[in-house]
């Protein structure tokens, strides 16, 4: 009978260290209070029916002590847990993309090269994997206990989160947000393979059209190219090489072009208008499925140079202009 989950990601040990500290803290204070209560209850038990105990004076010092010490402990916990949280929520730039669609009651996953899988996720060990997730219907949640990874997938927006697996093996995948009748069946497996095995796996199996090329087709079908025509005087801003860049908006603000910004620009273009362009883009809210939106976003991403994937031994920053086709 297992009592503790596997540690199979880079941040699992950090989460577990925090957990263990909290377990010890809980055990310590519970035992302290429990012991004091039992000892006092026995030592000061009522011996005569009508006895009335003497006065015990209040102590401001004691009150201060047991206010300040818990406060300090909680502040230490806050700082530590926030540090762990930052590690979890900041994906490295050089991450391998996988696109996930959740719908009642299954997970559809697609690797950037087009390899598709259902309710299973194959990833290489030692490589950062960034999941961009969308829901077709209700809120789901992608949960891999062994990685200490969880992210709610809310319809109407993209959810982006990352992990890096550290041990080959097979690990549970659960949907962790109640989503209807077969919520407990929306489960699967995450397979962590050695890099060689992963490459072999990647080129086999059902190779659907890559998301980017499906997105390219949609781009034309929805007449996006009539305004985003990539020529001088075009009615819409250029989409070449914008991913990851800073975009200037009307009103002087700026925004970093990421998946969420691209999705928003399709369904609610008036929210952030690019400087120097008229606000004429129609909204595609409700007209394109979540999967279609993932494809379009993947397509626009493919128009920008991908950050170089680090070699397994030591990560090196990509030289400017260098373009390693690691994820296409």
């Amino acid at each position, binding site marked *: 009978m297992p009592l503790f989950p596997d540690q199979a990601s880079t941040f699992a040990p950090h989460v577990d260290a925090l957990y263990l500290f909290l377990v010890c*803290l809980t055990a310590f204070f519970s035992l302290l209070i429990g012991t004091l*209560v039992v000892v006092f209850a026995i030592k000061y038990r009522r011996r005569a029916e009508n006895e009335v105990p003497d006065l015990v004076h209040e102590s401001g010092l004691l009150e201060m002590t047991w206010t300040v010490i818990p406060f300090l402990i909680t502040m230490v916990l806050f700082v*530590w847990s926030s540090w762990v*949280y930052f*590690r979890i929520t900041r994906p490295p730039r050089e991450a391998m993309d996988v696109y996930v669609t959740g719908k009642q009651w299954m997970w559809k996953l697609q690797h950037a090269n087009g390899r598709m899988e259902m309710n299973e996720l194959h990833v290489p060990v030692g490589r950062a994997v960034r999941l961009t997730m969308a829901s077709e219907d209700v809120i789901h949640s992608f949960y891999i206990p062994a990685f200490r990874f969880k992210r709610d997938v809310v319809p*109407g927006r993209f959810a982006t989160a990352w992990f890096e697996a550290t041990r080959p093996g097979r690990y549970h995948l659960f949907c962790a947000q*109640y989503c209807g*009748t077969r919520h407990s069946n929306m489960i699967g497996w995450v397979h962590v393979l050695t890099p060689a095995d992963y490459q072999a796996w990647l080129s086999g199996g059902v190779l659907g059209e890559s998301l980017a090329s499906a997105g390219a087709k949609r781009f034309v079908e929805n007449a996006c190219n009539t305004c985003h025509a990539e020529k001088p005087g075009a009615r819409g801003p250029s989409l070449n090489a914008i991913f990851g860049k800073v975009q200037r908006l009307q009103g002087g603000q700026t925004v970093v072009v990421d998946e969420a910004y691209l999705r928003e620009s399709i369904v609610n273009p008036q929210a952030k208008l690019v400087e120097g362009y008229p606000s004429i883009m129609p909204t595609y809210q409700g007209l394109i499925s979540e999967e279609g939106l993932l494809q379009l976003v993947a397509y626009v991403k493919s128009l920008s140079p991908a950050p170089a994937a680090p070699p397994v031994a030591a990560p090196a920053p990509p030289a400017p202009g260098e373009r390693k086709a690691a994820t296409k």
Partner: protein
Amino acid sequence: MSSAVVGALPVEPRQHYLNVRYGVGSWLLTVDHKRIAILYLIGVTFFFAIGGVFAALIRMELLTPPGDLFLSETYNRLFTTHGVMMVFFFMIPAIPSVLGNFLIPMMIGAKDLAFPRINLLSWYLYMIGGLIALWALIHGGVDTGWTFYTPYSTVYSNGWVVVTAVGIFLAGFSSILTGLNFLVTIHTMRAPGMTWRRLPLFVWAHYATSIIQLLGTPVIAITLLLVGAERLFHLGIFDPRQGGDPVLFQHLFWFYSHPAVYIMILPAMGVISELVTGMSRKPVFGYKFIAGSSLAIAVLSFLVWGHHMFVSGQSVYAGLVFSILSFLVAIPSAIKVFNWTATLYKGSVSYQTPMLYALGFIGLFTIGGLTGLFLASLGLDIHVHDTYFIIAHFHYIMVGGTIMGYLGGLHYWWPKISGKLYPEAWARVSAWVIFLGFNLTFFPQFILGYLGMPRRYHAYPAEFQVLNVMSTAGASILGIGYMIPLVYFFWSMRYGKTAPANPWGATGLEWQTPSPPPTENFPVTPVVTREPYDYLTKEEPAVG
């Protein structure tokens, strides 16, 4: 104000609030806060039983890994109903509407609450709301979880969402009116000499609770109305297909539902304060700090709702703010635990049942509260959110905390309420059975949660079975533990020994009047001259 000699007053006067008038009409149209408390006692016991039956069914299904006892559809309705019944129709009203209603006027030396007819209206709203929810249950129930997350609840669910929402809405209105009644009563109807600094801590706790009831409940009321409107009229407020935001629903829902958990625990803490001092005949250590902590909890409780949404996609900075505030809200509770423990020091500790429940509360609430720190920790919450760890955490507080407080209070004041003594031996046995059964039920769930077992799961991987079996075994013991008091409380009404006015030798105005009290509580309005919990100054009672 106190009598050091137990039972100085004559027993059971000829006329009191129970026998002053007979007949169903005299109960259903009563405006006596004590009778309304009894009406609530019947109501909350009824809905607790329903919620308990569904808990039993859930635990039975979870004995085995596959979902083989119920269809998924059915199971989803089981846990939803368990949650709805327990949260809205038991936990929120139980202590305030039963014990609070009965005791607050007596503890402050008043004849009744400020608005007796509104008190009765509160009961009717509660019962009608509960019966409406019951109607929905009988006709198939709801399957959204008690949290009603959108768009599942507004677009996809095929259960009786709107009807159930109406039932909860009415219960919420009842809660608002009760809070309003308590607030005004405590402000304006204290007897002469009953200053704020002399108020029993039970009253302070309910004052803080009333603030939360008044400010928080309207928000869930409007949220339920919007959910109903979206479902019935296809408005797009939370539906992403029309541009709506499901996370907005979560913000609005948790803005109430987090403070709601403090509506559930603060009254229990008030009970514990009374039990600990009454059963050890010592003033509460740190009276001002406990009173102040109650207010601090009420205020801080409104600032932490985002900790239910750490993985929903709110910004990192929002997460940090809610995390630090969630850590801070734990501190006043810790202060209370230390002060209760210190109260026992050099006291005269009785082992009678109310004290057993109080001691159990202190231990279990400590564990439950400390596991809250796990959840306030951002990095850790990501892993345990929506797992059995959360379920274990809130059951430790709600069942190990509030229900133990409720039972302890019920035993403590039973002589006053009924004029009878419950059988002490049986009561101690059931307190132990409940304590042991509870721990066996919920402690394994902490382990299950960290292993990764998600909540609301009908079927689960085989390696989780042993812990689930332990939990179900505990639940059966716990269920038996709850049934024993039900039996002997009824038994005591007919066969119990007659209770004196002050069986515990405690301080407090409620003990200065006969058991059961006359309808007007005090023949002459008391005048308060002594500090609270003053066991040492010997003086004649203020009331003859």
